[in-house]
């Protein structure tokens, strides 16, 4: 069936460096792609989303890139800080479908 997955389960980055978290998806009908951040003991928190008719979207210190040709999504975090340490999930949704499909997550650890 359709699925959303991640390339790497763990990622360690030096504080101040940029980090890139990758995600592969297989549902070509998806219209929205979303990134969530989950800190220990908390619920997932929305970070940023991108529609399928876009290839790049920027937020505060974050950029999401979408490559529909290879069905690849990435989250770039600039100048990482200790507070960026968390598990990051990608998710996708089809227009008209109110359900999200989540990937399994990548744990990002920031090294001081």
């Amino acid at each position, binding site marked *: 069936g359709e699925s959303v997955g991640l390339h790497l389960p763990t990622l360690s980055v030096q504080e101040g460096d940029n980090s890139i978290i990758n995600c592969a998806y297989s549902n070509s009908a998806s219209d929205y792609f979303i990134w969530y951040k989950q800190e220990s003991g908390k*619920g997932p928190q929305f970070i940023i989303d991108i529609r399928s008719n876009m290839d790049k979207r920027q937020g505060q210190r974050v950029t999401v890139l979408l490559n529909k040709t290879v069905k690849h999504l990435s989250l770039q975090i600039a100048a990482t800080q200790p507070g960026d340490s968390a598990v990051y999930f990608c998710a996708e949704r089809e227009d008209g479908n109110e359900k999200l499909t*989540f990937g399994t997550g990548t744990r990002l650890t920031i090294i001081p």
Partner: protein
Amino acid sequence: DAGITQSPRHKVTETGTPVTLRCHQTENHRYMYWYRQDPGHGLRLIHYSYGVKDTDKGEVSDGYSVSRSKTEDFLLTLESATSSQTSVYFCAISRGLSEQYFGPGTRLTVT
């Protein structure tokens, strides 16, 4: 986590007992969701609701039922808890086309 609360936050119960988890929102959103989160599986949708008395199944609905008698409350019931239902349960509301806002979670242990 203002806007959405879950109760209880922690519960330990025995196999075969009924358990009800409550999700309460103060934002009057139409869509509400129940997920479970397990290591290696990410978040999996159990049931969701698109209005009062309107609910539908997710990908892992077996062994669970839900009810929504008021806009603000969405209840998840395990009729007869099993050890495989030990998990962290999250409730969420839909705030937009792609943004779901999650509650703090309920950690359920079935012994």
